[in-house]
């Protein structure tokens, strides 16, 4: 059987604002090594083209041809990946990716451009329960991105500025669009940029902690998604978790946290591919059988 050899898989995570691609080599005992990672923002381009572009870049970085990839799996907006073999739900890929990044993790808090979700899982990345935000963009990544643009701050600078806050001021409402006006108001009153940004981080953290609570997530929780890189949001979250007796978890993150979904997709891809090979239903297996 071919199940004994290493597999090459790719995971493609199509989010609302960015595309993330990873390429993995997965050993028969399910040990994954990341060969390449590429992330790009969509920015009003056709997501399908961005996906193709990122996939090409990732293969180039991994020095592979498309034919050498055993299985391409999508997650997120999977319909944008025309060449995928299979699709996995965001919950399972983020859980799996989080566990790969931080072995032993019992939860993942994914903060994306539009949604946030808290996932509770066991030691083997099996999803035990989850909660998602819905219907409203407050507390999402898009929200802070809009504000940052308005303040003339790049996304990379947001975290450091927020940490400088001395008197943070929370926006009065929850609507992401109305909050923009609120922020204009703050600027005109002379509230400093650090205090505005920290205020937004606090109001986002508020919602995220509620999410953690309702999903009943405990233990080591990995922050994933684009906003995991925002040190200001992380600090606000850690403070708020520490202050809330009803949540007992330790928040950690990883430099590759933005790739969690794509990593999980690539790892699950290997599992599924081996299962298909074992059943002899994979096209590759059929081809191999025909040539044998």
């Amino acid at each position, binding site marked *: 059987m071919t199940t004994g050899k290493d597999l090459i898989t790719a995971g493609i995570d199509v989010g*609302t604002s960015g595309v993330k691609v990873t390429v993995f080599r997965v050993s028969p005992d399910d040990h994954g090594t990341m060969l390449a990672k590429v992330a*790009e*923002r969509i*920015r*009003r381009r*056709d*997501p*399908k083209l961005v996906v193709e572009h990122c996939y090409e870049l990732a293969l180039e970085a991994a020095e592979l041809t498309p034919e050498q990839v055993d299985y391409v799996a999508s997650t997120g*907006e999977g*319909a*944008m990946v025309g060449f995928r073999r299979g699709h996995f739900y965001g919950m399972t890929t983020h859980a799996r990716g989080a566990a790969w990044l931080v072995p032993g993790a019992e939860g993942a808090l994914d903060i994306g*451009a*539009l949604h946030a979700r808290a996932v509770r899982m066991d030691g083997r990345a099996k999803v035990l329960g989850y909660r998602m935000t819905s*219907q*409203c*963009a407050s507390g*999402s990544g*898009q*929200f802070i991105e809009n504000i940052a*643009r308005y*303040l*003339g701050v*790049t*996304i990379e600078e947001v975290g450091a500025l927020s940490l400088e806050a001395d008197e943070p001021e929370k926006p009065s*409402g*929850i*609507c*992401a*669009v*109305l909050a923009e*006006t609120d922020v*204009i*108001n703050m*600027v*005109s*009153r002379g509230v400093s940029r650090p205090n505005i940004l920290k205020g937004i981080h606090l109001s986002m953290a508020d919602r995220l902690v509620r999410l953690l609570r309702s999903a009943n997530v405990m233990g080591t929780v990995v922050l994933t998604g684009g906003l995991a890189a925002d040190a200001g949001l992380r600090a606000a979250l850690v403070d708020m978790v520490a202050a809330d007796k009803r949540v007992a978890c330790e928040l950690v993150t990883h430099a590759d946290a933005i790739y969690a979904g794509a990593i999980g997709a690539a790892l699950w891809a290997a599992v599924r591919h081996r299962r298909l090979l074992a059943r002899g239903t994979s096209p590759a297996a059929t081809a191999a059988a025909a040539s044998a």
Partner: protein
Amino acid sequence: MSKLSYVGIDLGSTTTKSVVIDDDLNILGRGITNSRSNYDLACQIARTEALVDAQMSRLRSTLADHRVLADHVKILAPSVERSFRYRQHIRLFDALDRECMAIAEGKPDLTAVLADLLAEMREETEKLFSGLSAMEKRKSEFFRDIAGAQFQRLAEHRANPKTMPYETIVGVFDRAIIKVENEGDDLTFEGNALEALDRSLSQYKANDAVRAAAAEMLEGLLADPPHIGCSVGTGYGRARLPFPKNQIRSEILCHGLGAHQMFPGTRTVLDIGGQDTKGIQVDDQGIVTSFQMNDRCAAGCGRYLGYIADEMNLGVHELGPLALKATRHVRISSTCTVFAGAELRERLSLGEKREDILGGLHRAIILRAMSILARSGGVDEEFTFTGGVAHNPAAVRALRDLIGENYGKRTINISPDSIYMGALGAAIFAKRETDAGRAERGVGSQSEARA
């Protein structure tokens, strides 16, 4: 203009509007600009623009009646206006250019990219303001939007994910525009008209007689600027306007009064603004008897359309005509403005037609407005629709349909000045304050304000 004029300013969340009226409540000029964190400046610019508009129409009528210049009015009048807009634009562009280069200082790679980009932008700008159809070619009238769209497009061509990311280049614009917008420049009629006329006359290759007559005519206009009795402010940001308390009015009152002035039979007003939707009931004097508005959520407001237009890379005013072409209505399930934008992108890439999606979106907005109207006391005869969204034909059609279904036949008034209704109401209050002798002359009224 020896008679007094009155100014109303409506500081909204997205745009700031201003109207100048005369003693008989006729509108002399209208001005609009995008709102920004420097509220004072946003007001000054809107008022400057309204005064420019008033002066421009005087210039047009003076030209038309002039014994030498009347023959040239058809070409000269629009040309002077275009030259004037060009002067304003290029002043702001110069400031933007300076700011961008200052931000990039010490980064040779970025400086090189920006210098090249800005040079191309300058060339384009010249073209943007020449030719007769030039005004229509621009998606928006605001410097921020025109320059922003140009900058992003040109940055896209020059970006390289590895060496010079798009975000880095555009980040410079985002920082520079904040300074440019909040520091201001002289955009007044007085400060730019002579140069504008000069530019037009050289383009027109006018002879000496025309030149002399035109110069004399303009001198005459400049020597007799409008005298402003008083200014009244309203709108979202009114509490922070540098006006005395008696020169500030709530936007509900102003919209009610403005609509009443325009259509005296008005009993119900719907105003859809940038971030709020208001249903207002007024009596036969234009006095508000009850009102309802949205809060906590921007769904169904003008910004909703703004987001959608951004997402589709269109100007806001292009949405309505496109939506009218819908053959079916795609249901958009997201209530949230930000989500609807994302949902739209998804639907588009799944092959839904733009017009069908837009048709659904417009209906969704009006459905929200209908519930606010119902809570404010329903739709009485006559009904007046105000705010920026009243210019949108698809929104108007959806509104007509839904009012017909729910309330039966109603007169529906929509003025071409619908967006200025709040400012008009404020201007009428300004006249009343002046007549009552309470106005503080000169407060916020200097037409020479450096905007």
